[in-house]
């Protein structure tokens, strides 16, 4: 399953890379001109990578969308939000969780000569609010009788910092394909020494302080102010 996941990742990355870099070699301008920041467009995006959960992470159902405010093709204000639920059925327990996550941050475009595309780095501050519970917990022992128990729903929130590196390119007019790899660093919250979350919405593995991830977005750019 992991192999399939990374073949899928690799092919999406290769498509993005070839599509963004196949056109021109010299993408960097020798000197940077100072221009006032102007809102040049808003992109609405959907993380299509999450639609592959049914194949690669069948216990998870999630979705994620983003708003991307283009400031003079140089800086992009980013708002992302999503929902995630886990329904994990194992031989000796059932685990479920659900929650929302929100991210706010900024991307910096390193491309100077292709203003409609993006290659750059960014950061996000993320917050997740989620609940988790478990039932049919089977406790077995060589001598003591087996029994089943449950843990009632508990609520949590957590914050993390995210640093990303990514690409966005215009596939068709006003339609963009984007890919980003990110490092997510736990800041505070979301910990429970006895009942550590399996998967924290938007952050990933609950037991980890640092998670790596990748997003695959399709964006629609609301066509206004584009040529200014």
């Amino acid at each position: 399953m992991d192999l399939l996941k990374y073949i899928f990742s690799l092919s999406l990355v290769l498509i993005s890379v070839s599509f963004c870099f196949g056109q021109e070699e010299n993408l960097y301008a020798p000197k940077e001109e100072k221009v006032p920041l102007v809102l040049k467009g808003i992109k609405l995006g959907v993380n299509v990578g999450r639609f592959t959960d049914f194949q690669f992470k069948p216990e998870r159902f999630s979705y994620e969308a983003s708003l991307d405010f283009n400031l003079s093709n140089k800086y992009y204000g980013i708002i992302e939000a999503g929902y995630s639920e886990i329904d994990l059925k194992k031989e000796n327990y059932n685990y479920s969780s659900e929650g929302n996550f929100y991210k706010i941050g900024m991307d910096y475009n390193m491309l100077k000569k292709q203003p409609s595309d993006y290659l750059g780095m960014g950061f996000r501050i993320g917050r997740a609010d989620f609940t988790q519970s478990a039932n049919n917990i089977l406790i077995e022992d060589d001598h003591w009788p087996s029994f089943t128990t449950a843990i009632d729903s508990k609520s949590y929130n957590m914050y993390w910092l995210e640093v990303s590196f990514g690409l966005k390119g215009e596939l068709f007019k006003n339609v963009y394909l984007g890919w980003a790899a990110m490092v997510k660093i736990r800041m505070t919250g979301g910990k429970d020494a006895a009942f550590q979350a399996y998967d924290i919405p938007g952050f990933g593995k609950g037991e980890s302080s640092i998670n790596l991830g990748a997003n695959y977005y399709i964006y629609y750019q609301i066509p206004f102010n584009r040529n200014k």
Partner: protein
Amino acid sequence: MKSINYIILIILVTVSVYSCSDDQCNADTDALLKTELLVLDTNLTSIKYLANLSVYSPEWTDSIHYSEEGSKNILNFNLSPISDTTEIVITSLNAALNDTLFIYSRRELLFLSPECGFVTTFTIDTILNSTNYIDSLKIITKNISTEKDGSIKIYF
């Protein structure tokens, strides 16, 4: 531009390696009470009290025999995952009487990992014992987890 491709490749390889995991529970899931049995009474040593010693709980259908599962004066067993009171009977083939331990503890369910599921950990509050052969009992380590066993010493 080549350097960007290298960066992407490094990130992908890192993500792949970092995400690799199997679905097997490879962790230790036992949270045991290590019981050291120190037989100092010469009357008991003469009847090979320890060699023939067994422990059981009235809730068990079997016993743990020192001759089979014990060594170096130590016998391990789990506290009750169902109750905060664990009753353990200590018996020996050549001894006329038994001794009983009542171990009072607090239990906590711990989500060990997605692969292993849940285990029960304990904190011993107190232990009461009969004194047919037991002289004294000492709690050495009261917290019992999968990472560290609890420990008591029983002097006969």
